[in-house]
């Protein structure tokens, strides 16, 4: 599971009551892939564009927390407008989002303590019928 995916996840059980509190990662196995699109200006441009586009949608604190628990702590504490237009930063961000995988581990909801296991890179978000949110 990528950090990008982790960033958009939320606990959707009834107990969490629609809150968007981040899930804490307890990693047992992490894989960092090397960036594969280098030396290809077109792919680089696409990466930068993608990162730029995703940036406003990201929860930066969640990303920092997530990266930390995966063993990365080089992320800046906040994104300044200069950084948001810096190509090098955007490419680094793309790499953090896309190439850092949680292979095995656990996601814990900080609010309710509900745990979601991650095995083989696939997070298990299967809920029991009585845990489901009631649609409004």
């Amino acid at each position, binding site marked *: 599971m*990528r950090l990008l995916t982790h960033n958009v996840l*939320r606990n*959707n059980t009834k107990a969490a009551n629609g809150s968007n509190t981040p899930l804490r990662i307890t990693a047992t196995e992490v894989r960092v892939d090397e960036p*594969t699109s*280098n*030396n290809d200006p077109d792919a680089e441009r696409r990466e930068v564009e993608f990162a730029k586009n995703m940036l406003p949608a990201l929860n930066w604190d969640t990303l920092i927390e997530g990266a930390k628990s995966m063993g990365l702590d080089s992320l800046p504490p906040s994104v300044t407008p200069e950084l948001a237009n810096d190509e090098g930063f955007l490419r680094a961000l793309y790499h953090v989002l*896309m190439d850092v995988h949680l292979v095995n581990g656990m996601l814990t909801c900080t609010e309710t303590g509900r745990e979601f296991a991650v095995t083989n890179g*696939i*997070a298990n978000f299967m809920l029991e019928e009585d845990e489901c949110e009631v649609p409004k």
Partner: protein
Amino acid sequence: MSRPELTGHASLFYNEKEARKYDSSSRMVGIQREITERAIELLKLPSNRPSFILDVGCGSGLSGQVLEEHGHVWVGCDVSRDMLNMANERIERKREEAMGEGDSSEDDSDNDMNDNNDSNNDFNNSKGGTEESSPGDLLHHDMGTGLPFRPASFDACISISALQWLCYSNTKEQIPKKRLTASSHHYTKGARAVLQFYPESSEHAILISECAAKVGFAGGIVVDYPNSTKAKKHYLVLSFERSYKAPQGLTGLEGALLNEGRSGSGGVRVADKDPRRAAGKKSRGPPRKKKGGGKTKEWILHKKETQRKKGKDTRKDTKFTGRKRPMRF
């Protein structure tokens, strides 16, 4: 047409054997590919950058593969673990290929760089193969229980041949409508969702579009090749923009490619004030006159009902209503 969703829950039907069969069937692959291409076309994504797409009911990642070819980043969720394992295998394979190429084109410094990367978190690394690794990610999740994503996370959402699974309840707690509404909370960035499905009847199509309208989506069902039984495909095209109107369904020429070429188009608007009325038009219509057949009982009852609504004098419905007259000599 066989309907596996009648037999039970998707996670039970798509076991390992079925998943493998599904993934290796060239017919399935072809159909899924075609539908996904069409779904991407309906999404009208900006072509100059990769989009972040949610694939609900991704199965073995066939649709994800097409998304990759278009350069998009996707997250797939599915209820069947075996299907996900198939998808995972594919992603792993692709990654290994990509890594393999990267290694062959580089010398030993490769590994050092890699170590650097891990320990110092220096991302300004400058190498790699030409083959990109798969930008897909997977979640094991049942879409009927609501989606575990923050609002406004994705650029778009697709779902290929999955929605019909929600129309059936296998246990009494699983109320189809509830499940559908739950899954309709699609949380996209004011963007579009294209969900392709196989409704068993027009009621299913109406039920689905009603749920979508209830959650506040505008859009509708686009029916491609409505006059063909095989090539007919239902796409629920949704958007948060109020003024959004569902595009026209494909007809004619392209249909001929599927050996089923007949023209005509259809569309059920979700955004209409009363979706039932809009959708009802399709099924109501004048009944087709059969050769030698008269008016059916249903038709008569319906006609009487409308007459009554208009306040006209109408005989009450009895067991004799619409009954055949005895044969004459």
